[in-house]
C-alpha cells in the first residue's frame, strides 16, 4: 500500500428498484488514495464489483466539479459528507482516515423516491420550477443593461440565491424533509430583480402549492439546510419566501 493510502469499510445502501426494500451492504476497500474524490472511490468499488460479476452501485453524478447538482450521497449522516460547502464530487478521501467505516445512503424523502441504490428521483423539483421558477421575456435583441438599474445589494442577494444547484441536500438533511430552502432560493432570485416582477404574485402561490402537493415536509427553522447547503444558500431566502407568499395571499 503506498504511503498515505487507506483501507476503508463502506456500508452502502443497496436497493434493486423503487418497489423493493433495500439494506446496507458492507464492502471492504483497500489502498484508496487520499487524493481521490469520493465519487472516484465509488468508481474503484464498482470496478471491483464488476470484476467479481456483481451489480455495480448506482449513483448520480455528472459534471464532477460541483456545479450540476447531480451527486447526492448521504455520507456518515450528512448530505455531501463532512465538509461544508462542497458537493460529494468535491469531497476528497483525505477527509477520511485509514480504517474508517463510512455509511452511504440515498437522500430520503417521500418526494424523492429511490430509483436504485443511491439514485433518487428528484423530478419533484422540476415540477416546482415548472409552476413559476421562470420569467416571461419577449424575443428579440436584449435591451441595454443600463436601462434596468438594480441596487447592488439586490443584485448580490439574487445572485446568491441563484447559486442553488437544486441538489436536494436541504431536503435530505432536514428532519422534516422540507424543500423550503430550495423553493425559497428559486422564488428569491426572481423576486429581487425587475425581470421577475411580472409573475411575482402568482409565482409565490403556485410554487408553494406545488411544493406542498409533492409531499415535502414543513419547515421548523432548525437551520440544518443552510449549514449543509453546498452553495451556502441562506435562511434569509425562506423568510423572503414567507413574505412573498403572505403578500401574494393578501393581494389575491
Amino acid at each position: 500500500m503506498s504511503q498515505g493510502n487507506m483501507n476503508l469499510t463502506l456500508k452502502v445502501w443497496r436497493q434493486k428498484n423503487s418497489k423493493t426494500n433495500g439494506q446496507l451492504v458492507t464492502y471492504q476497500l483497500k489502498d484508496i488514495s487520499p487524493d481521490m474524490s469520493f465519487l472516484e472511490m465509488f468508481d474503484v468499488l464498482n470496478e471491483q464489483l464488476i470484476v467479481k460479476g456483481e451489480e455495480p452501485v448506482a449513483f448520480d453524478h455528472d459534471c464532477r466539479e460541483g456545479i450540476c447538482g447531480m451527486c447526492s450521497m448521504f455520507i456518515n449522516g450528512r448530505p455531501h459528507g463532512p465538509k461544508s460547502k462542497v458537493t460529494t464530487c468535491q469531497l476528497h478521501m483525505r477527509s477520511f482516515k485509514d480504517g474508517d467505516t463510512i455509511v452511504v445512503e440515498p437522500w430520503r424523502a417521500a418526494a424523492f423516491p429511490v430509483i436504485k441504490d443511491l439514485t433518487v428521483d428528484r423530478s419533484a423539483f422540476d415540477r416546482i420550477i415548472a409552476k413559476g421558477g421562470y420569467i416571461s421575456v419577449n424575443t428579440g435583441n436584449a435591451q441595454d443593461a443600463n436601462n434596468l438599474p438594480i441596487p447592488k445589494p439586490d443584485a448580490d442577494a439574487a445572485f446568491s440565491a441563484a447559486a442553488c444547484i437544486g441538489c436536494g441536500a436541504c431536503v435530505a438533511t432536514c428532519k422534516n424533509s422540507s424543500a423550503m430552502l430550495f423553493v425559497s432560493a428559486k422564488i428569491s432570485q426572481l423576486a429581487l430583480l425587475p425581470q421577475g416582477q411580472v409573475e411575482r404574485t402568482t409565482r409565490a402561490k403556485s410554487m408553494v402549492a406545488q411544493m406542498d402537493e409533492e409531499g415535502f415536509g414543513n419547515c421548523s427553522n432548525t437551520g440544518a439546510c443552510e449549514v449543509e447547503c453546498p452553495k451556502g444558500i441562506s435562511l434569509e431566502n425562506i423568510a423572503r419566501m414567507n413574505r412573498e407568499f403572505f403578500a401574494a395571499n393578501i393581494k389575491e
Partner: protein
Amino acid sequence: MSNTSGKFLQSSLGKKLLMGLTGLFLVSFLLVHCFLNSFIFFNDGGLMFNQGAKFMATNPIIRVMEYVLFAGLILHMVQALILTMQNSKARPVKYAFTNGAANSKWYSRSMGILGSLLLLFLVIHLANFWVKSRFTGLPGVDANGNENLYLVMLEVFKNPLFVAVYMLGVFSLAFHLLHGFPSAFQSLGLNHKKYNPLIKGLGFWFTIIVCLLFAAMPISIFCGLIK
C-alpha cells in the same frame, strides 16, 4: 401560470405563520404570568401576590383573555400535531445514521418532545392552582381580605416531588423558547441583517430571565426563603 394554490391556512406556510403567531401570543402570556408571580418576592406573606391574583380573577378583560389564551394554546398544539404528522409522512424510510448535531441544535430538533413535556407539566400545574382558584375554592382569605392563592403555593412547593416537576417544566420551557422565540419571527418572514441580533438577543434574555424567575419561585419557597 396557473394558480393552483389552495386555502391559505392549509398551506405549509400558512400553518407556519399560525404556529409563530400563537407562539408569540403565548410568550406574551408568559410575560404577564411571570411578572405577577414575581410579587411573591416581596416576601410579605403573599399580600401583594394575592392582590395581583384578585385583579386577574376579577378584571373583565383578563376574564375574556383567559378564553383567548386557551384557544391560542389549543391552536398551537393542534397545528403542532398536524405538522408533526405531515413531517413524519414526508420521510417514510428513515436514515440508518444521521448526524444532526453537525448542523442544528438538539432543542431545535426536539420542539415536539419539549412541547409534549410542557403539556404534561401544564396539566399538573393547572390542577395545582387554576382548578382550585377557579372551581374547587381556595383556603380562606389573607389579612387584606383577598382569597389566599399564596397559601396554595406554599403548600404545593413544600413537596419536593412537585418542585422537581416544576423544574422539569421550566427546563422544557427554556429550551422550547430558545428555539421558538427567534423561530417565530423567521416564520413571520421577519429576518433582517440589521434586526436579527436584536431578535436573537431579546429571545435569549427573555428566556433566561423568565425561566430563572419561574425556577426561583418553587425553590425559594421550598428552601424557606419566602414564607
